[in-house]
């Protein structure tokens, strides 16, 4: 029995693919998810959330407020003109903009509600939610930071009770003055209560509302989760299937049909081009069927965006099939391709947004995302279904161009590797 077990262990460790699937792939995925969910890295892995800020008030108070937001550890403030900021959101480059409307300074001193508005892309609701949490407490404490808290609280309270009978208003004002003193002066210098707690209580009293406005919101048909699920899964599964098609090259080599093809008068490179064409056609059909399925079963509106969808399907198919053919040209055996492809596809899918939205990930991983086919393709599908960009829009066309360049580069590499590895019969 021990001998049998030892034999199995020996066979297992000789099979590089099994070793790869058992150890390397889980380790790679654990690492990726740990970074993505903030469990790794020196500072806990969390990264700053980017927030555009448009200051329409342009006062000392609004300038000071901007500085306070910028000093927050969790937020990276990008001061941007409003028009540009809104364009950035519409094109998916940024998730939100905090607008400091005109009258901010006056409202701060008079204790009125602050004219702050956060406009955002609903597709990034989770990211914006985290941002909102950070902003609310900061906004509430603004009077303590750049204004007169006692006046602010008093004015706010007066505004709240302004409809009460005048006599009652005066009684309330008299009895609340002490409370405002207490709150603003720090609980009568009671050193047992930390300054932060005092500030928090006052902040809660003052409140910290920010108007939330969805700049891009879910239409009737194209829910963000659905677009994420369809696009993310479709691209990941496409990568797996094109690798299978690419592996046909290795099967042909192993079964002797490749050699037989070389006996024919056709140019040897045509063999590779034939595989590329087949992989492209199957990829296009696969994506079409997946989106058609999403339309029929989940109601994803594909027909209003047919032009963009077809262009993105073509570009995605071109890039993905080139990846599959390259991998097959690169490897020397089917087993090698299977191990390598599983690792690469899972990593690309994880960082590229197939498994989870990329804003979950830390900044450095979001930068890495652009290395994956998944990222460009998924963002392209979001452009179509979520941001409703036209297929002539420069942002959309840029993603198409990147996918085409990826495809072209991988295909060129595939030709080189095919000549070196597959055609080499020596």
């Amino acid at each position, binding site marked *: 029995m021990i001998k049998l077990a030892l034999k199995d262990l020996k066979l297992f460790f000789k099979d590089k693919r099994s070793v790869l699937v058992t150890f390397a792939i889980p380790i790679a995925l654990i690492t990726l998810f740990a970074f993505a969910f903030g469990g790794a890295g020196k500072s806990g892995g969390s990264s700053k959330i980017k927030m555009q800020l448009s200051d329409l008030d342009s006062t000392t108070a609004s300038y000071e407020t901007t500085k306070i937001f910028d000093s927050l550890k969790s937020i990276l403030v990008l001061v941007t003109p409003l028009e540009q900021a809104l364009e950035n959101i519409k094109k998916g480059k940024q998730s939100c903009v905090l607008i400091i409307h005109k009258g901010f300074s006056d409202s701060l001193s008079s204790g009125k509600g602050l004219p702050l508005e956060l406009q955002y892309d609903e597709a990034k609701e989770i990211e914006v939610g985290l941002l909102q949490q950070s902003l609310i407490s900061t906004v509430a404490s603004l009077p303590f930071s750049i204004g007169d808290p006692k006046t602010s609280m008093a004015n706010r309270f007066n505004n709240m009770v302004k409809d009460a009978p005048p006599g009652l208003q005066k009684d309330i004002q008299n009895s609340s003055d002490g409370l405002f003193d207490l709150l603003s002066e720090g609980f009568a210098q009671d050193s047992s209560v930390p300054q932060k707690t005092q500030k928090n209580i006052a902040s809660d009293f003052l409140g910290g509302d920010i108007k939330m406005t969805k700049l891009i919101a879910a239409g009737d048909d194209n829910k963000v989760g659905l677009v994420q699920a369809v696009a993310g899964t479709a691209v990941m599964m496409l990568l797996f299937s094109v690798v299978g098609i690419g592996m046909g090259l290795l099967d042909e080599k192993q079964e002797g049909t490749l050699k*037989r093809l070389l*006996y024919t008068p056709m140019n040897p490179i045509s063999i590779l081009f034939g595989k590329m064409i087949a992989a492209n056609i199957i990829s296009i059909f696969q994506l079409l069927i997946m989106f058609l399925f999403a339309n029929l079963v989940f109601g994803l509106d594909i027909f209003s965006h047919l032009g963009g969808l077809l262009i993105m399907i073509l570009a995605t198919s071109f890039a993905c099939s080139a990846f599959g053919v390259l991998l097959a040209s690169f490897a020397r055996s089917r087993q090698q391709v299977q191990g390598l492809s599983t690792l690469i596809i899972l990593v690309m899918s994880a960082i590229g947004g197939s498994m989870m939205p990329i804003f979950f990930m830390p900044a450095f991983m979001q930068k890495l995302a652009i290395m994956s086919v998944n990222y460009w393709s998924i963002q392209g599908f979001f452009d179509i279904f979520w941001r409703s960009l036209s297929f002539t829009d420069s942002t959309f066309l840029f993603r198409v161009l990147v996918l085409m360049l990826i495809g072209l580069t991988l295909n060129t590499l595939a030709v080189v590797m095919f000549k070196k590895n597959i055609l080499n019969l020596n």
Partner: protein
Amino acid sequence: MIGIKDLKKSYGRHEALKGISFSIKEGEFYGLLGPNGAGKTTAISIMSSILKPDSGEVLINGNNIYSNPGETKKIIGVVPQEIALYNELSANENLMFWGGMYSVPERELKDRKNELLDLFGLTDRKNDKVANYSGGMKRRINIAAALLHRPRVLFMDEPTVGIDPQSRNLIFEVTEKLHHDGMTIIYTTHYMEEAERLCNRIGIIDKGQIIAEGTLEELKKNSPAKETIVVTFNNLDDQVAQRLFSSRKNSKRSGNTIYFYTSDLKKDLPPVITQCQEAGAEINQIEFQKVNLETIFLSLTGKQLRD
């Protein structure tokens, strides 16, 4: 029709071909006979231009195959040693595909395909997947796929390996018919019976070198072996074998067997037996062989074709 000059090819340190030269006339049936690993497949691969030699030249129909491989490939057909077909496709589909690779016009291809299916006795099974064929049927389709474009030169690399006698006979008959119709055929094999039956001329190849060449009659005539006394011993040790070799130069050893070549069997048999007894060897069996390719090969290399 085909001229091979000083062809050399090495795989790393292993010299697969050590400078072979021969020529084949149009319409000739040339056999390349040798054991496994002799260099036959390497020679075929180079002649069909899918493998580049380290040095040497291959001329087919007067053209260097590497100067214009596309044109040369149009007139040659290759039957590979392995069954190189798409198992999930039917015989019909396979033949249409491989004919298409030679740009045979579709209507002509259909006629040719049907003709070949008929010739190889596979018309009834033409729509079955190749995966469901017997080994012999696969071999037959493997050959048919090389004939669709009516090549003038046909390379056949061990086309009968591992098949049933019925399929083998059919392949022989078809091959003979092709030759009769004027096709130039280069046929590699390690079965001497095939070479003896089919080939006009035979090149014997071993360790990357052509060690003898000619018609069967020429090979027999020039061979040191005329007839062979095959003596098998019980436990032939090296010292005894050495004593026997010193008394009879024209002999080869293979395991417990010694082959004594003779031009006069009746005259030489008694002294051979006497010498064996005197050397202390215990004879187990004595056979007599007339000269054939096997004995010629043995006399030239000291080993059997199937070693």
